[in-house]
């Protein structure tokens, strides 16, 4: 094997990098708009999964504010606030952060909860996904006033929410986070819809 000079080797690495980075950026630019479109559609879909789209008539995805750690989408009908959708994150799961989407109507009822992202144990903690079980639907129609009672807990802690065999930490984290987010909404309703 004949030796190559370091300069010519470096030149070749540079040339290859240039070509490959060029290929990746070409594909990136070609797919950028389509990906943004997909993500916007996915956001709309997930917003509609926690709040009936017939209950509001504004451009929900763009009527958004940031308050403390929460991103809040405000739903209005003919200008009157009807509900809010909050995203929140808890780190009390079994592994990493769990991101939630929580819809609450102005009457103080939960219109739906969904898990947006998590890294819980497959086959155990991932039953919080609506794709796997409908556990997350057990929050629907619950009232904010239920949250202050001792019933707002998993069964093992004396509450009303099921836990999963072999995984209590994950549902407990979500039950607590929904409560925290719900109470936050209750206390800040005025500010949110200012």
């Amino acid at each position, binding site marked *: 094997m004949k030796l190559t000079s370091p300069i010519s*080797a470096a030149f*070749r*690495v540079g040339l290859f990098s240039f070509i*490959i980075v060029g290929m990746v950026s070409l*594909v990136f630019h070609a797919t950028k708009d*389509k990906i943004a479109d997909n993500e916007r559609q996915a956001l709309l879909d997930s917003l509609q999964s926690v709040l009936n789209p017939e209950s509001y008539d504004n451009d929900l995805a763009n009527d958004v504010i940031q308050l403390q750690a929460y991103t809040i989408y405000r739903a209005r009908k003919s200008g009157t606030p009807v509900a809010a959708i909050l995203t929140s994150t808890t780190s009390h799961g079994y592994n990493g952060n769990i991101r939630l989407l929580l819809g609450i109507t102005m009457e103080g009822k939960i219109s739906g909860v969904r898990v947006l992202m998590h890294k819980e144990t*497959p086959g155990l903690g991932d039953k919080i996904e609506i*794709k796997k079980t409908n556990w997350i639907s057990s929050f629907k129609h619950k009232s904010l006033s239920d949250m202050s009672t001792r019933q707002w807990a998993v069964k093992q802690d004396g509450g009303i929410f099921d836990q999963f*065999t*072999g995984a209590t930490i994950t549902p407990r984290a979500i039950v607590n986070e929904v409560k925290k987010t719900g109470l936050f909404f209750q206390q800040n309703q005025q500010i949110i819809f200012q």
Partner: protein
Amino acid sequence: MTNNTHIIITNGLWQNNQALVALLGLCPLLAVSNTVINSLGLGIATTLTLILSNGLVSSLRGYILAEIRLPLFVLMIAGIVTIIELLMNAWFYELYKTLGIFIPLIVTNCAIIGRAEVFASKNRIMPSLLDGLAMGLGFSFALLLLGAIREVVGAGTLFSQADLLFGEAAKSWQIDVLHDYSGMLLALLPPGAFIALGLLIAAKNVFAIKE
């Protein structure tokens, strides 16, 4: 079928199976093989990456200097995986949402750089593409076996959540192999993956000795 083609195929599927003999790519193999469907998803994505990277490395092999071949392989593989991820994100969004987490894992699969080094950098394009396909199928075969063992022992089912890959109609594909089975957590967690893989390798060796 020429003798050469035959050797490439049996090597990829059996004699030099990347997962069971070369023991390459164990990181994604152990991480994702907890259900048959997850295994299938990673198997398809890995096979595609192997074919493309073998093809690219082979077609550029005249320009790759021996001293700098490894950084160049890494560059090419990372580029290919990123491009596959972007294309899937744009045009197969539903599939991307379920397979998306596996795609970056493929970069950690040393079987891909292994084939680039051992085969594609020394052979012409057609044999290299075939080698990528055979190695990919062999790897997928081991993944599927591992996924099936872990899913049956861990949860008592097969093909659960098939709808993630095949759409709503596949929801009914789930087979309850063991009825009223309370599950065995160990099989679903990483230690179960190591134990099951160990048993598979042992079984492969028993067959190999008999031959």
